[in-house]
């Protein structure tokens, strides 16, 4: 008897497998999520969910404080901040929430995934996000909050403008700068922070010749962002169709001259013992610790931690532009960071509340406070002016370096940075290749050729799902 049942169960299990496998590849059966939120009618505040990818006290705290201030100012709304551990977690959760019918209003998502966010659709096939510019629709203030979107600095505006529309509201925006331990450099007879690769080589030779030479001379995280920055400096494209800005990118160039120059220089520094690799990809903590501990004289890093280094370095810490290739004309560095995306499909009340909060969040006072807290650039021109009036830049000159570097960039597709599908996966391929080159001493050209094949395969696959 039991065996019979077992048999039936087995057959049923197979039937289930068969049913699951034969279901259509497009999961269109799920009903479209209803995103209607009840408007504030009887004094009940409209909840606006804001999902943030920061979990540290300072940066998450900033978001919480601003939300509390906004709620006090606009009692008909209730901004609710939820913290996630990474950008990917926020994005995955948001897409799933759209399908289950309870999406947040605003999510915090990073620059490299701009293409992915623009392409994202819910299970009903409708786009997940809505252009902030379109939603504002030319209004100069929303619920009494002046619109600051038009005031955003050019580097950020140009980066996030796709097909003529400024899609998402920039929040944490930075660029790569170099931090210099001037005590150590002065001791080695270097009086100015190195500006070019050749200057870095010379400075490192002097530093490593010191009697009390540090472990190594320079470090930076093995993060693809630095590679992209260097390509921008050298005016090289990472992808076709003007870095994916005049059309969808369908090809990446990981074997370009700019790429070879940068990686070869990097490997050379590493082989000479000037550069120290912490051994982990995207290692922000390890590299920053090495600099603060005086194990290296220079650190190429994100400007986002300028305030942190100013406060924590027990030596003279001077910020300077990211070192560039002296053999080619300088084109420009690009931004990095994240923006706040607004989800599509909200009712007018909720959407207006979300837009008002976005503009409040980056109003001159808040943008300036955010900059002072971290070192991310002041995102609007009025915030920059406010800081200059306050005398903040005289007090803290390192904080101005990032904005100056971005202002020095020519506005070309190369210096804007690429919009790419599966950028996260491609970045992973790039850092994986670099790790192989630094640790295993493999040939740069051969390894980059393999990376190029892999990256193009990833992009082609992505385009087969999203493109055309």
């Amino acid at each position, binding site marked *: *008897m*039991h*065996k*019979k*049942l*077992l*048999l039936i169960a*087995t057959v049923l*299990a*197979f039937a*289930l*497998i*068969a049913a*699951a*496998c*034969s*279901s259509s*590849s*497009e*999961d269109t059966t799920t009903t479209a999520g209803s995103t209607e939120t009840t408007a504030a009618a009887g004094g009940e505040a409209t909840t606006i969910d804001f999902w943030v990818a920061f979990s540290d006290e300072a940066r998450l705290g900033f978001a919480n404080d601003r939300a509390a201030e906004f709620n006090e100012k606009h009692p008909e709304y209730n901004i609710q901040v939820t913290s996630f551990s990474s950008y*990917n977690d926020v*994005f*995955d959760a948001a*897409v*799933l929430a759209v399908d289950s019918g309870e999406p947040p209003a605003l999510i915090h998502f990073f620059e490299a995934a701009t293409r*992915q966010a623009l*392409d*994202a*659709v*819910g299970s009903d*096939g409708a786009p997940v996000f809505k252009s902030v510019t379109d939603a504002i629709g030319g209004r100069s203030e929303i619920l009494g909050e002046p619109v600051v979107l038009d005031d955003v600095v050019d580097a950020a505006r140009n980066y996030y403008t796709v097909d003529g529309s400024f899609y998402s509201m920039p929040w944490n925006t930075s660029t790569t700068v170099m931090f210099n331990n001037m005590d150590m450099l002065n001791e080695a007879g270097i009086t100015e922070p190195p500006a070019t690769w050749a200057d870095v080589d010379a400075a490192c030779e002097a530093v490593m010749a010191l009697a009390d030479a540090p472990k190594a001379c320079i470090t930076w995280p093995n993060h693809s962002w630095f590679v992209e920055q260097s390509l921008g400096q050298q005016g090289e494209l990472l992808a076709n169709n003007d870095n994916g800005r005049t059309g969808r990118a369908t090809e990446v160039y990981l074997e370009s001259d700019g790429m070879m120059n940068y990686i070869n220089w990097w490997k050379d520094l590493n082989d000479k013992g000037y550069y120290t*690799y*912490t*051994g*982990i*990809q*995207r*290692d922000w903590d*390890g590299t920053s*610790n*090495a600099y603060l*501990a005086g*194990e290296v004289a220079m650190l190429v890093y994100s400007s986002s931690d300028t305030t942190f280094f100013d406060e924590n370095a027990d030596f003279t810490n001077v910020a300077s532009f990211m070192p560039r290739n002296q053999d080619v004309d300088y084109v420009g560095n690009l931004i990095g960071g994240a923006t706040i995306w607004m989800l599509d499909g909200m009712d007018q009340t909720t959407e207006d509340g979300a837009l008002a909060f976005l503009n409040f969040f980056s109003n001159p006072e808040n943008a300036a406070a955010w900059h002072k807290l971290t070192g991310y650039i002041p995102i609007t021109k009025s915030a920059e002016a406010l800081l200059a009036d306050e005398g903040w830049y005289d007090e803290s000159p390192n904080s101005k370096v990032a904005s100056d570097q971005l202002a020095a960039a020519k506005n070309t597709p190369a210096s804007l940075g690429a919009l790419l599908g*599966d950028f*996260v*996966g491609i970045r*992973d391929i790039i850092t*994986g290749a670099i*790790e*192989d080159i630094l*640790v*295993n001493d493999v040939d740069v050209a051969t390894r980059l050729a*393999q990376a190029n*094949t892999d990256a193009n*395969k990833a992009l082609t*696959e*992505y385009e*087969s*799902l*999203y493109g055309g």
Partner: protein
Amino acid sequence: MLIGLIVAAILGPLYVWQNNDRPSAKRYGLGSAIAVLGAAVTPIAMGQCAFAAETTGVDHLFAYTLMAGGAWLALIALQSFFDRADGKKSESAAMTGEIRTGGFRMGWWVPWALLSPTLIVLIVFLYLPAIQTFTLSTKLTRLGAPKSVDVCFGNFTELFITDPWKLVAYPLIAVGLIYGARFWMNRSEPGTLSRKGADVATVVAMLSVFVALYAMFSPGGGEQVAYRPVYVTTVIISVGIVAFGMIGGLAVAYLAFRRIRGGSLYRTFLIWPYAISPAVAGVLFFMIFDPTAGIFTHTMSSVFGIDVPNYRHNAFMAQSAIILASGWKILGYNILFYLAGLQTVSHDQIEAALLDGASTWQRFVKIVLPALSPITFFLLVTNLTYAFFEVYATIDFMTKGAPAGKTSVAIYEIIRVGVNNGDLGRGAAQSVLLFAAVIAVTLWQFRTSGSRVSYGGS
């Protein structure tokens, strides 16, 4: 596909003939039909995609393997049905010494009703997601993508070499070696030179399985994914963790088992590492060995003037560090079980051996070890499962797969590809592969170790 079904129709009755005494024509017919049905399930479910025009030999190979698996499972189910009808005792009942399971008096549905809460939980949280994983593994898809593409076995075939004949030959050679060794073993007498040769052959045959798998996985290049390095890393780290965890666990347990002052307190502390999460273990060892902030590195350079190289730059050191951290974490668990096991070792036997003049080492090897074999067997399974599935956090904190993927084991790779890069299909395919590996390892362990495990009784 038709060929596969015809072969199934012929092999079905053969299976019936082999497992039944003088079966009836009806049984032959059933065997044939059920085998065809079982074989047909997967190709039909997958829309015969593996036999489409542009497919390769490797695709066909995968399809035939799945057909064979389906037919085999169906035949096993059929056979158990026959055995039931014949009133044979089931194998498990024979092994545990049970005579007969008692009938339930209140109707056949009562036990099922009582089981239903568990079954529902199993179906919703285990079987349905598992089936979804299988479905996902045949697709190219991402979260938030407007469409997905059916790639049939593409996510699997890209992990293997492209030559279908080699792909068939390697596992067959390994299986042949195993059966050859077993045949030799059965023919040889204990204590003879021939038996020693058979022992060696058995070990060689076992190792040949690893070699065959090594040869089957793709070294990368072109459109193929370099999965061979992942396989090698997984084998090294898993074997390392299990060996370190179990040998270390037994050694510490044996030492802690002796009568010592404050023994029970000491023994309690030994178990503590098990209560620590893999992530915390990763952080702890990171704090010890980190080249910048590490305690060990700092002490070595400041006290002894030795510059310890960065462990993440060297494959051997990085893998050792992972094995040390993960093995240390499972150590407490193994100690706990070995301590319990040591209490069951017959004191009389040890005393008798002592009187016969056996040395400590001889007593340990000849009496204690065999007595602990059920626990060793159990720990082998749990430790391997741990090494396969629960090392992600430790690796993520200590090396993130560095140097250049040398510590990126299968589970780490699955999460990197499927979760971090959002490539759901490939992630699912790799997890199906790991799933198959765990089933294979478990089956193998039950077949080989099971027969040699002594559970004490008769």
